[in-house]
């Protein structure tokens, strides 16, 4: 279908564009920006007056809970949430049940997600079988099946020798490795940042050194193996400093933060709010401020939703017993805008962290509004406020620490391959 998006403010960080112009879509691709192409006949006109037209969001981590955890969420519910959140490409971590450790599972997930008006799903394969941290997966086969990177999700490899071997093997084929940095021994039984709040509430702490020791180990192994490393969900100022220093020393390493860690701190645990039970834990305000500044400067390369649907049974428990995680796909855009507003950043810079920058990390052709590229587009009203509520969320996980908060930035239309996936 030929679509003519008119009157919108086109903001595309990848092409350094920020102007009011019309955008034309034909055959699922962007046909032109500005002047009407010769012979173009619009079958549909979307009036984007007062709205921003930007590339569809690219999310580095969204758990769809399939296969295995369908009671928490289904592909349909979470893909609807992605569309409602303006997300058109997402990476899916391997901690499904069974984990994404064999090509058949990856192909099945890709097939299930290949419905029209669904976001593009990019599976991240398991680095070890069943994420057991012992046996390497068939990475070459998994990559052929569609995996864009290899990861352990939040399950660490305890044996450093196996970590070294896994990196060497991945580096053989130049596969990127995405890892969370948390020393499992120092984090044992921990449920919150080891600081004043955990001490006061009597919660077992996870010290910052659990992150920095793990980062140090991983960076040394990267030096040894030359593997392309992406560190997922950095949580501390000290951790970020190490990543920046390594990058300055010429090591190819990238990192991301989650929307939760960008806006919240240990203080938000309040009176044992299980919504603030997250992995890694929310850290101090100083840590949060460093992550916010780092994302602005580019020291942190991307922002992700870390979308983790948890059902009410998993959340309505005493803090330490509650399941970690929060829903996020529908909050990624408004929380990006909130951060940009609070830090007084240009809109294009803020949007880069959720469009072209994560697309670059994923190595996919997305996150840009270039003529000829797939028409994956998000159109949002930056002024319209929405109160985060259980009723409005399309994700089956209705738990987030942001419930009740009014947030500016309402997605009006989401287009995937030129098809309207969300909006009327």
């Amino acid at each position: 279908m030929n679509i003519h998006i008119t009157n919108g403010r086109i903001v595309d960080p990848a092409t350094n564009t920020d102007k009011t112009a019309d955008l034309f879509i034909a055959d699922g691709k962007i046909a032109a920006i500005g002047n009407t192409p010769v012979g173009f006949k619009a079958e549909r006109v979307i009036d984007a007056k007062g709205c921003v037209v930007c590339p569809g969001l690219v999310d580095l981590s969204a758990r769809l809970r399939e296969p295995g955890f369908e009671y928490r969420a289904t592909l349909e519910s979470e893909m609807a949430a992605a569309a409602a959140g303006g997300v058109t490409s997402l990476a899916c971590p391997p901690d499904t049940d069974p984990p994404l450790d064999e090509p058949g599972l990856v192909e099945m997930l890709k097939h299930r997600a290949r419905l029209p008006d669904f976001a593009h799903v990019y599976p991240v394969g398991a680095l070890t079988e069943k994420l057991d941290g012992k046996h390497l997966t068939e990475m070459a086969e998994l990559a052929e099946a569609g995996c864009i990177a290899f990861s352990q999700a939040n399950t660490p490899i305890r044996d450093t020798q196996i970590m070294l071997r896994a990196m060497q093997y991945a580096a053989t084929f130049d596969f990127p490795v995405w890892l969370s940095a948390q020393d499992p021994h120092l984090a044992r039984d921990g449920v919150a940042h080891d600081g004043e709040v955990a001490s006061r509430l009597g919660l077992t702490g996870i010290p910052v050194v659990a992150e920095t020791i793990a980062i140090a180990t991983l960076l040394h192994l990267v030096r040894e193996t030359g593997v392309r490393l992406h560190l997922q969900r950095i949580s501390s100022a000290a951790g970020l400093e190490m990543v920046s220093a390594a990058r300055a020393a010429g090591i190819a390493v990238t990192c991301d933060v989650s929307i939760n860690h960008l806006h919240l701190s240990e203080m938000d645990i309040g009176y044992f709010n299980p919504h603030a039970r997250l992995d890694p834990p929310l850290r101090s305000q100083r840590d949060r401020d460093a992550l916010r500044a780092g994302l602005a400067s580019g020291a942190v390369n991307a922002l992700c939703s870390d979308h983790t649907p948890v059902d009410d049974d998993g959340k309505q428990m005493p803090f330490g017993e509650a399941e970690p995680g929060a829903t996020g796909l529908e909050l990624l855009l408004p929380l990006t805008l909130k951060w940009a507003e609070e830090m007084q950043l240009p809109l294009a810079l803020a949007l880069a962290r959720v469009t072209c920058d994560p697309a670059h990390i994923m190595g996919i052709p997305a996150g840009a509004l270039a003529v000829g590229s797939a028409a994956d587009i998000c159109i949002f009203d930056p002024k319209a406020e929405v109160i985060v509520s259980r009723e409005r969320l399309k994700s089956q996980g209705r738990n987030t620490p942001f419930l009740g908060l009014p947030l500016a930035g309402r997605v009006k239309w989401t287009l995937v391959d030129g098809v309207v996936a969300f909006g009327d």
Partner: protein
Amino acid sequence: MTPALFPGNPQLNTRGGLQHLLSLDGLPRQILTQILDTAAPFTEVAEREVKKVPLLRGKSVFNLFFENSTRTRTTFEIAAKRLSADVINLNINTSSASKGESLLDTVDNLAAMQADMFVVRHASSGAPYLIAQHLAATGRDHIRVVNAGDGRHAHPTQGLLDMFTIRHYKKDFTNLTVAIVGDVLHSRVARSQIHALTTLGVPEVRVIGPKTLLPTAVERLGVRVFHDMKQGLKDVDVVMMLRLQNERMNGALLPSTQEYFKSYGLTPDKLALAKPDAIVMHPGPMNRGVEIDSAVADGGQAVILPQVTFGIAVRMAVMAMLGGA
């Protein structure tokens, strides 16, 4: 439909009065003093021939113990019975929880049995908050919750009975130096004591213990940290010993009970460094020869048994204030 969790402090009602007793952290001094004042006349009830007052007649108090405890449960039971309440004791770890029933399902079932008050002990920090928030979110505010110990977080009635004991012997809080000795890290009692002492105006609260048994940033709770017991006990008015749980012995926290006793056990020698009229307290049950020498536990400065007696009066006061309206 499950309601959203209520994020505010559920302990105080909109008028700033006591809705539940969940923690001493954040309780105003005036409420602490009011509880201690209310407890004072209840100490006399025990002296009477008929040890009962009718303040909670017709009310049902459920002792909901998700973690074993004979002593605390018994003192709550006695306190409730002396207030003429009907008391139902439930040891949940031997019933529903092992059948997979969730904490809030258990609470809903018992609430449906017309409970007026839950006295809750749970191994997870914050469990009584979850219950109170759930009751508020489901419009059952009339059911009151008393925290009888949650994880490492709080044991507010123990903290209160300790304050009652200190006030009984020392009269005034504002000229005291108090030392809390031992495993502060794992102790809900210590946390409640620290909040109560600082709120009541004790100018110097000390914690004494090895670094493995003190919480991170404990000084931000308003205490002075000592690792040397002899320095820490110097000229104190009150020594509050903590119980060292046996399971702490097998890990990497301490090498042996013998070494612990040598460094942090309260002996007559070490006690001699405190003021001559210093009192010695312990929440019980005591490990003689581990954290306290028998000569001290049974000595003239120990007020450990009066603590138990006062504990009943303080728990009566809390229950009367919450449920007697």
